[in-house]
């Protein structure tokens, strides 16, 4: 602990540098807006705005993107409460009680509770992050290529086991992401690979941003246009300083369950595929279970807003833990952050702590500052954010499309990538309509090159012996967990079927 404090102090000072502080404030404000807009979440904001961050140094850039991530988690509650539409899937549970509160004229109470709970969730998770990150990174230093590969298999297995989506479609999404990552020059022999139609644009590979912006920019906007058709009804929010103080006094109603939800959110958030959405739903369930008035949940209970908001904020910080320490992103947003870090020449993983301590501790310090900045901006400008939500979609949509097109062009400066991005956007939209999850593909395209390199290095070292992954203790445990996770849905289905058969047996006899 004593060794962490000076590093954390230096990190906070780094985050307070004028350029970094500006990026935090800007990122939090943009994140709040992006998170508040229905259909847009942190992943869209980070994917679309990543190319713009080439303007500032790498540390400031990643701090900006992390602040967007942070702000978006706060912002999701605004649309859940005032529109009844979750700003992102992570704020779905906030609608359950947020909407009834807004309908009964207590939107200000719900918004204040969401902001305060997010702050509690953020604070607890950042402290946990600070405590867990250095030892985990130190442990991960023991990892060789087989452990790295096994860890990636584990990350993909969580999508299959815990993602809750159709399993064959989830596996397809993972595999297509990995195949797209293998386009270009082979990492070992240098041979051109999967160069379709001899188009030279494929020689530099498929940039992860092209897929991420295509899916989360164009595809998601088409999806949002279809589901909302740009028509939303906003509940009015009036909040004076006195209202704010009164609402802040409500904190004693939900502090207990919120703190519990924060711990839960953090640990669920560290698991790839699990992340903020299930964390917030679980936290909501927990708050309801421990409540003295469980029947009031769903009808406008402030704790029902606070619990999921604390958990989704905690989960967003949690998902950064495996990204920073192991190089395995815990969510699609952190996958894009990881890709961005690679662009800036920073390889996330255990060595980051020893090679770039300024960067790591600056980022951790920025999380503390971002948490404070976001709650202040949120509480101060709630009416303004609500006003922005009334912005017609026909103004917002073309602006986002333009940012996507220009953002897709900027990294490689070829129209080939922009066309590819457009195709991915359309394909992502069509696939999503058929319940193909798109997040695993984004995670896979980021991890693809690392996964292939570690697999080939491992096989080369073991002379093609696949058992190398099982024989080494750490990779063996990872593979075992991965197998357990992959078989979990099958076991669950089998148990469900058996329970249904046992349940229906008496009926049949009757």
């Amino acid at each position: 602990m004593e060794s962490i404090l000076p590093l954390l102090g230096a990190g906070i000072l780094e985050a307070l540098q004028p350029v970094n502080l500006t990026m935090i404030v800007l990122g939090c404000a943009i994140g709040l807006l992006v998170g508040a807009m229905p259909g847009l979440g942190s992943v869209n904001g980070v994917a679309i705005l990543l190319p713009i961050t080439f303007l500032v140094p790498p540390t400031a850039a990643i701090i900006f993107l992390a602040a967007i991530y942070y702000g978006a988690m706060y912002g999701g509650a605004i649309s859940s409460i005032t529109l009844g539409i979750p700003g992102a899937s992570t704020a779905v549970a906030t609608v359950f009680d947020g909407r009834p509160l807004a309908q009964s004229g207590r939107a200000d109470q719900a918004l204040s509770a969401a902001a305060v709970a997010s702050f509690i969730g953020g604070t607890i998770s950042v402290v946990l992050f600070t405590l867990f990150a250095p030892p985990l990174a130190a442990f991960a230093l023991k990892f060789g290529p087989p452990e790295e590969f096994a860890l990636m298999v584990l990350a993909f297995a969580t999508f299959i086991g815990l993602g809750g989506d159709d399993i064959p479609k989830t596996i397809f999404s993972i595999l297509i992401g990995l195949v797209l990552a293998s386009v270009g020059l082979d990492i070992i022999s240098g041979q051109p690979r999967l160069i379709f139609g001899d188009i030279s644009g494929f020689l530099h590979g498929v940039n992860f941003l092209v897929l991420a912006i295509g899916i989360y920019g164009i595809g998601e906007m088409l999806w949002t246009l279809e589901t909302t058709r740009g028509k939303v009804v906003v509940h009015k929010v009036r909040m004076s300083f006195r209202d704010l103080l009164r609402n802040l006094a409500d904190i004693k109603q939900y502090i207990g369950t919120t703190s519990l939800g924060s711990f839960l959110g953090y640990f669920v958030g560290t698991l790839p595929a699990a992340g903020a959405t299930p964390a917030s739903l679980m936290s909501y369930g927990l708050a309801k279970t421990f409540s003295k008035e469980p029947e009031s949940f769903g009808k406008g209970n402030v704790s029902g807003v606070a619990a999921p908001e604390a958990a989704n904020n905690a989960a967003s910080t949690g998902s950064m833990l495996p990204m920073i320490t192991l190089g395995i992103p815990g969510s699609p947003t952190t996958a894009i952050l990881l890709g961005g870090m690679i662009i800036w020449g920073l390889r996330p993983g255990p060595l980051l702590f020893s090679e770039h301590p300024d960067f790591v501790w600056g980022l951790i310090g920025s999380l503390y500052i971002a948490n404070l900045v976001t709650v202040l901006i949120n509480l101060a400008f709630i009416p303004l954010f609500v006003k922005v939500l009334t912005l017609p979609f026909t103004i917002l949509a073309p602006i986002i499309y333009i940012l996507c097109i220009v953002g897709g062009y900027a990294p490689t400066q070829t129209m080939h990538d922009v066309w590819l991005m457009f195709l991915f956007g359309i394909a992502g939209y069509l696939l999503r309509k058929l319940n193909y999850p798109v997040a695993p593909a984004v995670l896979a395209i980021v991890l693809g090159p690392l996964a292939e390199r570690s697999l080939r290095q491992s096989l080369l070292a073991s002379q093609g012996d696949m058992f190398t992954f099982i024989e080494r203790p750490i990779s063996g445990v990872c593979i075992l967990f991965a197998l357990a996770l992959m078989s979990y849905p099958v076991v669950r289905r089998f148990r469900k079927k058996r329970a249904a058969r046992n349940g229906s047996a008496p009926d049949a006899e009757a």
Partner: protein
Amino acid sequence: MTVRTAELLMAVVCALCSVGLMIKSAELNIGWVEGRGPGAGAWPFWLSAGMLAVSLLTVYRWFGRVTAESRSTEPYLSRENLPVVGVSAGSILFLLVATHLIGIYAALFLFLMFYLKFVGRHSWPLTSVLMVALPVFIFCLFEWALKIPLPKSVTEPLFYPIYELMYS
């Protein structure tokens, strides 16, 4: 087309794409290369083989009506949604084609005019302001601040005076 038909069609297309990727990967060595480990084509080949297997599994599940999509008789692209999505996708396509022909700034100008005036039915003053302000903002951000030149095609000479101002 119903969601059920689309589910089958998509799985078949995915399976065909997988076969295509396997053939393309097999142009390289997909076996073991002495001293180098797995050949360059091995990784994408086996991944594509996995894609083919899960696509065929989706087809198999479609016959058994296992998934909600394989049972749904609702339209895949409904008549109410098709114009909204079609106009958006079509206008992006126009923006890309126009970027090749007349450069990105002129294309943005036309794209914004079409989207704001004819899709959004916003007033001319608002449309005009955004039609000019957004391309100017994009120019300042990318060309001036980030030093990333965007494609200008035949309109390139129009920017020479601005370049002179920027770089002199």
